[in-house]
């Protein structure tokens, strides 16, 4: 079993690396635009399967549910991101987004290895609620990572269009409309999860009376994320704000999510220290 988890991990790393390279090469090739290679998504999907095998087998070995540990949670988020991307690309021509999604998955899969396995057990808080909190955060993180990728590519494509530049990588990127729609859909799916995560996180902080230092920063950034992304969704609904400003809002929101994550990982006594 141990060997299987290790082999799946290394093969997953290889598959994600290969997928990253394939997506990049497809985007960077200087020849006339033609049919896109389907190898990138295929290799990425293979990487996701191996990744899933690694997570399942490793968590079985440690007798841990993946959402009970930040180690597995981070890894699982990347898996969610890959799955979200693979599902999304079926409905729109979003393959070039793989150039960001594949490296993100690789980073999280490898990065999770440097994060401790154990989640500090908090006797004072409700265990089922904690599991739901982590699950919502893991799923939300995965979805927001893809939304952030779509938002970033939107800004890049928009910049190229404003510069009035033909050719180059941007000519192979998805259209602005497709990126905008993808970002919006992902935010709609991820926002309820974020809301649940922020609310339960605030409850835990209150119960544990840890409104200080890292916990305070985490809570503040959590709320900042919530307000930013809520703002993006509400302004789009009420005032038709979309495009560049929505993309900036999304990218900023996703950066806040990542800051919360970093604060959690590197906090004193946290799994990354």
């Amino acid at each position, binding site marked *: 079993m141990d060997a299987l988890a290790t082999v799946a991990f290394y093969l997953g790393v290889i598959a994600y690396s290969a997928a990253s390279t394939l997506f990049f090469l497809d985007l960077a090739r200087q*020849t006339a635009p033609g049919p896109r290679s389907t190898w990138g998504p295929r290799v990425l999907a293979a990487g996701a399967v191996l990744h899933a095998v690694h997570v399942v087998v490793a968590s079985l070995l440690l007798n841990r549910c993946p959402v009970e540990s930040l180690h597995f949670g981070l890894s699982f988020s990347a898996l969610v991101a890959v799955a979200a991307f693979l599902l999304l690309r079926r409905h729109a021509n979003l393959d070039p987004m793989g150039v960001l999604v594949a490296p993100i998955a690789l980073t999280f899969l490898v990065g999770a290895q440097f994060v401790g396995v154990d989640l500090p057990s908090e006797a004072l808080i409700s265990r089922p609620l904690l599991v739901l909190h982590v699950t919502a955060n893991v799923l939300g993180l995965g979805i927001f990572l893809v939304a952030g990728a779509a938002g970033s590519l939107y800004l890049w494509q928009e910049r190229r269009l404003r510069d009035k530049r033909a*050719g180059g990588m941007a000519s192979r990127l998805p259209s602005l409309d497709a990126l905008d729609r993808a970002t919006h859909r992902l935010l709609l799916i991820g926002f309820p999860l974020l809301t649940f995560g922020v609310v339960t996180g605030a409850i835990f902080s209150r119960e544990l009376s840890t409104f200080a230092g890292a916990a305070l920063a985490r809570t503040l950034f959590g709320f900042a994320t919530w307000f930013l992304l809520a703002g993006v969704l509400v302004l789009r609904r009420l005032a038709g704000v979309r495009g560049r400003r929505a993309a900036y809002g999304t990218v900023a929101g996703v950066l806040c999510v990542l800051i919360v994550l970093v604060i959690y990982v590197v906090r004193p006594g946290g799994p990354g220290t």
Partner: protein
Amino acid sequence: MITVVGLSHKSAPIEVRERFALPADRVPELLRGVVDRPAVGEALLVSTCNRVELVAAPRAGASLEAVASASREALSALAPNAPETALYALTGGAAVRHLFGVAASLDSLVLGEPQILGQVKEAYEVARKTGTVGSVLHRTLARAIRAAKRVRSGTSIGAGQVSVPSVAVDFARRIFGDLRGRTVLLVGSGEMAETVARSLLSSGSRLLVVGRTPEKVRALAESFGGEPCAWAELALALERADVVITSTSAPGFVIEPGHVASARKKRRGQSQFFIDLAVPRDVNPEIESLDGIFLYNVDDLSRIVSESLLTRGREAVQAYSIIDDEARSFDRWADAEQATPLIVALRERIRGALKFELERSLRGRLRHLGAPEREALDTMLDAAVNRVLHEPTTRLRQAASIGELDTLPFPELSAALGHAFALDSTRAPGEPARSERAENGSQPSVPRSSAGDLDAASSDPHAAELDATLELEPSDDAPAGIGSSR
């Protein structure tokens, strides 16, 4: 080898080219007429709006000059009063390089345009169906198409857009993706604006036409199948439009930031793409500061076209080196193919002699053998002939392609072998030798398809790959040649 006789946009103006234009349904008739001529073994016609070229290969023993002359006569018959100088004729390596360049779009009016490759493939297909393509043109076209694909994938010859309408459509796609169901608003009229609108409409967009002259607007809308709108409805039309093309003769701006901001609000922030083709400009450039609004004027579009053309020009240098490489490879194959008639004749002679002896034995001492044993003996003879002739075949091909083998040049080697075995190596593969016809009419000759094609395949290790390149049947089913000498 081959000849190419014809005319193109480089050699003749359109008034001359159009006289050579041949309706598609008359091409087979022309090709059949060409291969009926004594010198021509194979022929195909590449006919586009920029060129009419007859590609031909000689019959056994005929010279390339004779083929070129026959091709010239056939084409001249299409336009009897056309000047003699209108047609160029290329033979041998020059013809091969030209054909490869044509397929790779290096000889096109718009360098790197992708249609020509499909047109070359179609020309081959028409000739194949007509039955005027043999092994030489089959192999040549397959190599030409492979060269073209190498050029397309290995260079940026096809990168970028090289006309204002195609640039406009490309940028519209980068903003909206699929253009089906999008609304294009044409404000004013003008040749360029109408061409751009037509390009967008061909992608599935709807059209609104706004202008100051109602009759003109109606006529224009009707011609495009669009919807006419009065000038006063411009603001409403702006709200509906995803792409706005302006080309009025107004002295000042027709569309101001206020109009666009108001339309944008109604459109709930959806992107809009403005293409201002008017001089003086119709759209105030300040609208570009609005989120989701993209404005390109005629200078922007022209600059992008020039950049693309410049890039393609630079890439052509690399493309020509690929063509040279492919042509050299083809030359080596063609040189090696000189040995084919001799090899086929040698193989048939040895196989025929062995078969004759075997049949005599089967009628005599071996008559007790059953069908399976007889079949096994036959197979064994084939294997033995292959084994015996393997080395001589390889060396003959080397001699033909390298030009010499040790100290004996190929022509001498060929003559010596032909003399020693009394071979007639000028006949086409599969055609019975004179001596066989005269002396041993009852002897079965080796079927051409097995001998000739076996040799062809063995001389070209890329045969299967080339057939796939041409998206054709495997080479064993490839046209057998109509008396080609290779």
